[in-house]
C-alpha cells in the first residue's frame, strides 16, 4: 500500500492555480523564461537533426539489405567479389555529416554567448546553499537588514532576470529548473554564478540532478514567479519576524526551542540553528521536506512525527517525544505565517 503522503494527489492543490502544465512538470521541452527560450530552439534543432540522421541511416540500412531480390542463408553459396570500391558513400556521407556538425557548432556557440549574460542587469542576487537534501535560499542585499533566508521555495518577480550564487555546504548537488534554466552544479569550495528569469507568473518545479546520496531523489524545490507587486509584498512580509504565538501554541514554541531550535531558525526567537531549513514563514510555502509533499496540516503532522518514514535517511531524526508535545509543536509551526 502506498502511504497517502507518498502520492502526488496532494500536489494538485499546489499546481491548480499555476499556469504551468502539470502533466510532466520537469519536462524541458517547454520554456517559460528568456534564458530557456534561447536554448529550446537549439534543443529542438539538434533533436530534429538526430531524428533525421537516424531515419536516413535506417532507410539506407534497410535498403542496403533488401534492395536485391532474394537472399542467401549460407555464405559459402555466394561468390566473393569486389563489385565497386564504394568510396563514393564515404565522400558523400561524411561530407554531409561534417556540414551538419559544423552548423551545429556555430549554432551552439551562438546560443552559449546569448545565455552567458542576462539581457538586463539583474535587480538582485539570491544565494542558494545546497545541503543534503534540501535547499537554503538567501536573498542578498547590500543593506543586511534587507537580507533574509528561506528554504526550498524561491520567489522571483516575473519578467526580470535574477542573479544566483550557488554554494554547497556538503557534497556536490546540481541546481535545475527545467522550464527556466538548465543545470548548474553546486560544488563545495567554489561559487557558481548563473541567472534566469520567468516570463510569466507561475510555479515551476526543480530538482537536484547530481547524485548526492540517499535522498537525492527527494531533493526538489519550487520556483514561484510572482507579479512584481506580489513579489514586493512577499518580500516585505518575509523581512518581518513571524507574529508571536498565542494560546496553545505558546507551549509549542517552547518545545520547538528545546527539540528543534538547534537545527532550525525562526526569526525573532531563540531558535537559531542552521543545520536545517529556516522555518520563519513556513506556512507561506507550498511544500514540505524539500518539495516532495504538499504543505497540509496532515502532511506536516506526519513529517514531524516521523521524518524517516517520509524521506528515509534524511538528516532529521525521528523525535522521541510525546504525541502531546508533537501536536503543540505542530500548532506552533502553523502560526508561522
Amino acid at each position: 500500500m502506498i502511504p497517502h503522503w507518498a502520492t502526488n494527489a496532494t500536489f494538485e492543490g499546489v499546481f491548480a492555480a499555476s499556469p504551468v502544465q502539470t502533466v510532466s512538470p520537469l519536462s524541458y521541452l517547454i520554456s517559460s523564461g528568456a534564458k530557456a527560450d534561447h536554448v529550446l530552439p537549439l534543443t529542438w534543432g539538434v533533436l530534429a537533426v538526430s531524428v533525421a540522421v537516424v531515419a536516413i541511416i535506417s532507410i539506407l540500412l534497410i535498403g542496403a539489405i533488401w534492395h536485391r531480390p532474394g537472399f542467401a542463408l549460407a555464405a559459402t553459396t555466394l561468390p566473393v567479389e569486389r563489385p565497386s570500391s564504394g568510396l563514393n558513400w564515404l565522400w558523400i556521407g561524411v561530407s554531409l555529416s561534417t556540414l551538419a556538425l559544423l552548423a551545429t557548432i556555430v549554432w551552439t556557440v551562438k546560443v552559449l554567448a546569448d545565455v552567458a549574460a542576462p539581457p538586463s542587469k539583474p535587480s538582485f542576487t539570491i544565494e542558494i546553499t545546497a545541503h543534503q537534501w534540501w535547499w537554503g535560499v538567501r536573498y542578498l542585499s547590500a543593506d543586511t537588514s534587507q537580507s533574509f533566508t528561506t528554504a526550498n521555495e524561491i520567489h522571483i518577480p516575473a519578467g526580470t532576470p535574477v542573479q544566483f550564487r550557488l554554494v554547497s555546504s556538503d557534497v556536490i548537488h546540481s541546481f535545475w529548473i527545467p522550464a527556466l534554466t538548465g543545470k548548474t552544479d553546486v560544488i563545495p569550495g567554489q561559487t557558481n554564478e548563473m541567472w534566469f528569469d520567468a516570463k510569466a507568473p507561475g510555479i515551476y518545479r526543480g530538482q537536484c540532478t547530481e547524485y548526492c546520496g540517499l535522498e537525492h531523489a527527494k531533493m526538489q524545490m519550487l520556483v514561484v514567479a510572482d507579479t512584481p507587486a506580489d513579489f514586493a509584498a512577499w518580500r516585505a512580509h518575509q523581512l518581518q519576524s513571524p507574529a508571536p504565538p498565542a494560546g496553545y501554541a505558546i507551549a509549542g514554541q517552547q518545545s520547538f526551542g528545546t527539540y528543534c531550535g538547534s537545527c532550525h531558525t525562526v526569526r525573532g526567537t531563540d531558535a537559531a540553528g542552521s543545520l536545517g531549513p529556516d522555518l520563519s514563514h513556513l506556512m507561506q510555502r507550498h511544500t514540505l521536506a524539500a518539495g516532495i509533499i504538499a504543505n497540509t496540516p496532515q502532511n506536516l503532522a506526519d513529517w514531524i512525527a516521523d521524518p524517516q518514514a517520509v524521506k528515509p535517511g534524511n538528516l532529521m531524526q525521528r523525535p522521541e517525544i510525546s504525541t502531546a508535545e508533537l501536536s503543540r509543536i505542530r500548532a506552533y509551526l502553523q502560526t508561522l505565517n
Partner: protein
Amino acid sequence: MTITDYERAPTVSTGDGNRALAERLQRIWETEPGLKGWLSTVDHKEIGLRYIFTAFAFLVLGGVEALIFRVQLAQPNEHLLTPEQYDQMFTMHGMTMIFLYAGPILSGFSNYLWPLLLGARDMALPRLNALSYWIYLFAGLFLYAAFAIGFGPNDGWFNYVPYAARAYNNGPNIDFYSLGMILLGISTTVGAINFVVTFMRMRAPGMSINRVPILVWGTLTASVANIFAIPAVSLAFFLLWMDRNIGTHFFDVPAGGQPLLWQHLFWMFGHPWVYAIVLPAMGMVSDGLPVFCRRPIVGYSAVALSTVATMVLGFGVWVHHMFATGLPTISLSFFSAASIIIAVPSAVGVFAWLATIWTGKPVFTTAFMFFASFIMLFTIGGVSGFMTGSVPVDWQLTDTYFVVAHIHYVLIGINVFPVAGAVYFWFPKFTGRMMDERLGRWNFWTMFIGFNLGFFPMHISGLLGMPRRVYTYADGMGWDTLNLITTIGSFVFGIGVLMLIWNVAISYRRGRPAGDNPWDAPTLEWATSSPPPPYNFLVIPTVQSRHPLWEERLNEQPKDQRSYPHAGLVLEQGKEAIGTTPLDAQPDIILKMPGDSPAPLIFAISLTVIFVGLLITTWWLVALAALATAATMIGWLWPERKLGETAEPAVHG
C-alpha cells in the same frame, strides 16, 4: 661465420600433411593436463576463453542487478529496495558492466583472436597475458566481496568526491572501490602493453600494418589509449584512498582540496575508456560484416584511420562530462566543438559499413543480423551523444534519463550487439562446432526488440525530466508508463541474453561440426583447424594482402605475389615464434617463447593480498605480501636457459 639460434634461417615448407611436425609442435606447445597445467597455462586461446567466460559471468551479475532495480522503478513510489540498497545496486551495475564486462570481454576476444589473425603462435608476452587475466579475476572478486558483505560501492561508477570522502561515506564501500579499481587498472595496463608489443613484433611475415584486420586496429588503438588513460584514474583512486585512510587533503574541501580535480582525473580516463570499450567491438563488425556481404570492407584505410582519429580526439573531449560545473564559456565552446566534431570519424565507419552491405550480397546469418543492427543502434547512440555535445542543450539533458538512454545505446549497441555477433561468428573457430542458427534468429530478435523496447523510452522519460540515479519517483510526473515499458523491455532483453548463453551451451555439446572455415572468411584465423591446435599454425603463414583466403577469387594481385596461408617458416626447435619488423613485418628474429608457469597466478595472488592489506590498513600484511610479490617476480624473471637468458644459445655453423 656463426649465427645464433635466433638468427638461423628456418626452413620453409608447406607443412601440409606433415604429421611428424604436427606431433612435435603439439608436444612443445600443449599445456600439461591436470590442475597444475590449468593454473599455469599461458596459451592465449585458453586465457582468451577465460576472459570471455568471466566477463559473461559479470554481464549476468550486472544484468540481474539492473533487473532488480528496474522492478523498483517499474512504478512510482515502490519500496522494494531501500535507498542505500538501491545506491549500491546501481553503482555495482555500472561498475560491473563498464569495468568488469565491457573492457574484459573485448580483451578476451582479442586475446584469443590476435595471434590467429596475425598468423602468430602466441601473444608476445604470454606470461604477462596470464597475469593480466588473473589480476582481472581477483579485482572482480575483490569488488564483489564488498557487495557480498553489504558494503558495495555506493557513489555511482564515477564516484564523485566529496560524497566519496570519509566525511560523507564512512564505511569501507569506497575503499573497496578505490583499491579494486587500482588493481583492475594493473590488469588492463599489463594487457594493453602486451597488445602493443604483439602488434609491433608478432605479425606474420608480409603482414604490413596496412594489411592487418580492423579488429587489430581497434584493439591496438584502445590499448595505446589505456596506457595513457589508466594512470589518471589509478592516481585519482589512490589519492582518494590516501584522503580516506592516511589523512591527505587532495579532495578535502575545508582543507583546500578540489572536488573538480577528481572529475578531471576521472574523465581524462573515463572518456578514452568509453572509446576503448567500443573501438575493438567496431573492429569486430568491420571484419565480420564483410564476410557476410561477400566483399572486402569499403574504405579499409579510412576505417582504420578513423579508428585512430576517434581515439586521438577522444582524449580532447573529457570536459563534456563537466559542462554544468561552472567552467568559463570559452573553454565550454572548445570542448563542445571537439565533442561534436568527434562524430566525423564515426560517420566514416557508418557509411563504410552501409556501403559494404549495399554493394555486397548480404547473407542472413545471425552474426550478420547482430552486426547490421549494430549500425542502427550505433547511429542512435551516436546522435544522442552529438546532442549532449551541444553545451546549452546538455545543460538540460545531462543527468537525466536521456543520458542513461545514450550510454546504454552506446554500450549495448556498440559493445553487446557486436559481441553477440562475434560469438556467433567465432564460436565455430573456438569450439569446432556451429551455433544453432534457428535459435540464433530467436536470440537476435528477442535481444533487438527487448533492447529497443527497454531503452528507447528512456530518451523520452529523459526529455520529460526524469533525473538519473533516483531510487524512486512520484506519480504525476508523466514517467509512469515509460518506466513500466522500460522494465518490461529490460526483462525481454535479459531473456535474449539468456538465449545467447543457452545457445552457446547446447551448441558446445551438440553443434554441427564446423570445419576450418565455415563462413568462407578471408582472414588467417580461418586457415587453421577449428579449434586451433596449441601452436595455432603448423608453419608460419606468409601474407601478401588483407584477405589471404580470398585472393584467388578477388584476383587483384599477380599470381606470384599471393599469400601462402599454409606455407612459410617452420619453427620447430623449441617453443618458437617469428619476430617481425614493426611496419613491414619482415622476418627479423626467432623468438623463444616462455612456457607455462605458475608465477603469474602466484604473483596475482600476492598482489591481491597487498590490496587486502591496504583495505584493512594492516601494514604488516602489506609488507609481507609485498615481499612475496617481489620474490615471485624474481622467480618469474630468473634467467632460463631455454629462453636463451643464461648463456649463448646453440650455435649453428
